[in-house]
């Protein structure tokens, strides 16, 4: 594993010059700074972050369409929009897409883009691994979705219980696509996790102690640690299932004495930390948004950080609460029931802290703020129904009903997705230099907020009335009558789903309209608090002209404001504008910044994995070809220095003398690094 050299002023003469063409028999490395090559071969964390976000958004729309088809099918009794088989594929792919191809990568997008900026680094620790992670995610997602046209999508539900997932009950290749596709996106997450953890641990700016890190960076650290330890468990489970389906192993063959609970345990040991992997990034985002728009520091920063870490820790001890109905025995059930209730404590602490952050603040209701408050409200509802599931006797009644569906949609859509939208509206000016329309944004928020409640609120009633999840129809004769009849509330839920879709559509329209408008965002549009706002919008290739030295939590805020004593106590007084702070910081730019250079190998290596996976399903010869590509790419990667030598550029780099950096011109040398 090579270490990245990002120290400014490192002298390339210390290393022997390596020209790939001449010395290694490999290609010249890519150097394009513009055009599609600049994106495809990039290792820049900001470009990768944007690509993560765009791809995740695409999969979000795809998964959303699947959800709409499901709700269309359930809008009328004994409906025939989808056949039973197609319905199974639809809900499996809806869940898989939303979890693995939208919420996780969307939070990876924010982590990629903002983690280095928030801790004051120029890039992540292993930039090429970062690119590898993105391409693996993209190819894994495409691979998974090609199952639709190659013999049928996976149809076993997102937790794919055995023995239902064996070839006997699910004869199409769908489940194979599922196991191998998730294996590929799993490697992407693992690679990303290692990368981001090392970045946080090793690459913080001077003075940026752990307890001065923004909460978003903290929550991402916890999430990446969870991923680091959860992914290998699902990897094992997926391998066992693959070996069973593709090579005839006996792991889940009940006739030979296999234990169906093995899959359930392995899956949920991964699956429950996964739940926190989905929600904690959103917690991090709203912990940034709320203080900014309440014009107050986050109430109890340490409590928020440590309760986040506590959620991450306790999250490992609760997996069996997904299995209360599987006959674990009273002792296990009691233990997991209690540990599950314990998790409500740190979560409650966070909700209190957010509420108290708002208390007495000068609230500024931007769209981002609306989404953040919406997150608190909806997550609290979902969290409370979660506590009812922790009570095992109640849960045995609720298992596999719409009550569960209501709960996890309130936490994932209400808590996770709303938080991600808060992040999109909050950081959009930072990423693209233009602010999203607030008018459209408000419409977007209210439609989504009302839509979520319309869709998932009635599901509580449906669940208590006994409608099981994953049923393709609700028969007319079983709907009942009166206020609680199934028909009415199912229709309400379907109307709600389309309300959410309209909200999302407005977001897409907003994005396109904003892209076309010429008005640039202000340097510091929200009067923000953290380090990522101490550079231009969008940030330069090298993030900061000069790496700031950090003196406090909310460093940027403290550079703009000063506490002054007045007659009515201590008040904050503005001492500098954002422009002043920028000018001050950029007065002494760092000399000779070495950025990691673009590389062909991440995309080549990532491409090899789906080739191997197709081979496993259809023809092993293809796997061998994939393995050869994999080996070739690995060696190409290892033999390529992470930073290009000075002589590799075409045309050669300008002389190292730096022009004085000003606000809109980055030093010429960096432009060629691309």
């Amino acid at each position, binding site marked *: 594993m*090579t270490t990245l050299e990002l120290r400014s002023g490192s002298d390339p003469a210390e290393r022997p010059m390596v020209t790939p063409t001449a*010395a290694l028999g490999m290609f010249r490395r890519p150097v394009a700074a513009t055009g599609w090559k600049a994106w495809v071969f990039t290792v820049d964390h900001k470009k990768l972050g944007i690509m993560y976000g765009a791809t995740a958004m695409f999969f979000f729309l795809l998964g959303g369409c699947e959800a709409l088809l499901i709700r269309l099918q359930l809008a009328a009794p004994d409906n025939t929009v989808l056949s039973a088989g197609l319905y199974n594929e639809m809900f499996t792919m809806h869940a898989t897409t939303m979890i693995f191809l939208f919420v996780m990568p969307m939070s990876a997008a924010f982590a990629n883009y903002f983690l280095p900026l928030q801790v004051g680094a120029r890039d992540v620790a292993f930039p090429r691994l970062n690119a590898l992670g993105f391409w693996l995610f993209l190819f894994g997602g495409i691979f998974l979705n090609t199952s639709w046209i190659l013999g049928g999508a996976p149809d076993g539900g997102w937790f794919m219980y055995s023995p239902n997932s064996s070839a006997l009950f699910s004869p199409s290749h769908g489940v194979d696509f599922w196991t191998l596709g998730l294996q590929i996106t799993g490697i992407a997450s693992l690679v990303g996790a290692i990368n981001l953890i090392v970045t946080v641990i090793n690459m913080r700016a001077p003075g940026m102690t752990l307890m001065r890190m923004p909460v978003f960076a903290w929550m991402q650290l916890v999430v990446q640690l969870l991923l680091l330890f959860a992914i290998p468990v699902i990897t094992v489970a997926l391998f066992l299932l693959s070996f069973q389906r593709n090579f005839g192993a006996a792991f889940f063959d009940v006739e030979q004495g296999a234990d169906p609970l093995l899959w359930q345990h392995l899956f949920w040991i991964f699956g429950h930390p996964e739940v926190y992997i989905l929600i904690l990034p959103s917690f991090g985002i709203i912990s940034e948004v709320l203080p900014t728009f309440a014009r107050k520091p986050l109430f109890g920063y340490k409590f928020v950080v440590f309760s986040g870490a506590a959620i991450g820790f306790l999250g490992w001890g609760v997996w069996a609460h997904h299995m209360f109905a599987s006959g674990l025995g009273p002792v296990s059930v009691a233990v997991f029931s209690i540990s599950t209730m314990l998790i409500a404590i740190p979560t409650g602490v966070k909700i209190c802290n957010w509420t108290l952050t708002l208390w007495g603040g000068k609230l500024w209701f931007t769209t981002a703020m609306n989404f953040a408050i919406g997150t608190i409200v909806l997550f609290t509802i979902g969290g409370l129904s979660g506590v009812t599931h922790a009570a095992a006797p109640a849960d045995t009644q609720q298992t596999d009903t719409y009550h569960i569906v209501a709960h996890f949609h309130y936490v994932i859509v209400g808590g996770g997705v709303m938080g991600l939208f808060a992040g999109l509206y909050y950081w959009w000016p930072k990423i693209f230099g233009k602010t999203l329309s607030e008018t459209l944004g408000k419409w977007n928020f209210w439609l989504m907020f009302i839509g979520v409640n319309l869709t998932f609120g009635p599901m509580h009633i449906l669940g208590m009335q006994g409608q099981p999840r994953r049923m393709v129809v609700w028969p007319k004769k079983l709907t009942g009558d009166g206020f609680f009849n199934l028909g009415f509330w199912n229709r309400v839920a379907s109307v709600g789903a389309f309300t959410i879709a309209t909200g999302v559509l407005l977001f897409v329209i907003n994005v396109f309209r904003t892209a076309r408008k010429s008005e640039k965002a202000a340097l510091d549009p929200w009067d923000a608090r953290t380090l990522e706002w101490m550079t231009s919008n969008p940030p330069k290739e090298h993030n900061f002209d000069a790496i700031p030295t950090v003196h406090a939590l909310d460093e940027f805020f403290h550079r703009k404001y000063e506490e002054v004593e007045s007659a009515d106590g201590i008040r904050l007084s503005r001492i500098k504008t954002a422009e002043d702070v920028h000018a001050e910081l950029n007065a002494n730019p760092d000399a000779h910044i070495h950025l990691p250079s673009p590389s062909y190998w991440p995309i080549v290596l990532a491409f090899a994995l789906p080739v191997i996976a197709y081979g496993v399903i259809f023809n092993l010869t293809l796997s061998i070809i994939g393995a050869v590509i994999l080996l070739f790419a690995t060696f190409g990667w290892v033999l390529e220095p992470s930073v290009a030598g000075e002589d590799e550029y075409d045309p050669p780099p300008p002389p190292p003398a730096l022009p004085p950096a000003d606000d809109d011109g980055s030093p010429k040398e960096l432009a060629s690094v691309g």
Partner: protein
Amino acid sequence: MWMFLGSECLLFGGLISTYMLYRGRHQGNPGPAQVFDIPLTSVSSFVLLMSSLTMVLAVNAAKENDVRNTKLWLTATALLGSLFVGGQVYEFTVFYKEGLGFTTSLFSSSFFTLTGFHGVHVSVGVMMLLALVAIISRDRVTGDRAEVVEMVGLYWHFVDVVWVVIFTLVYLIPA
């Protein structure tokens, strides 16, 4: 590398748990007591443990900037590693002839998966070692040479330690 190894612990944890759950389930087919050849596996385990020693010597030599001995000990480590993998291939062949295929029973599936995964890890390690020798010979190491050798060493020791656990749980403790 430490992060990656932490993650690997869980991978092997999952595989070992699966094996421990299924090792008694072979329904009349050969079970652990019938097929295992403990003296043979002990010898190959000894070979693998010795490779950790040569790896330590390689890291030491790299730290003293002694290129010749670094290459020597890395090659020795790779050789011992290959010997271990060879022993495993031989062992699998014998088992197969005794009627224990991958698909025979729950015990066989989980046994071959667990030890197979370990074997693949050793093989990848051998490839890393050989590649390292090659790039050291041609002076193509990016970054600090001793650090790179130490990284590979960490991985190698980890794979070794996992084998100690597998050997104890799979071979030595009777089912």
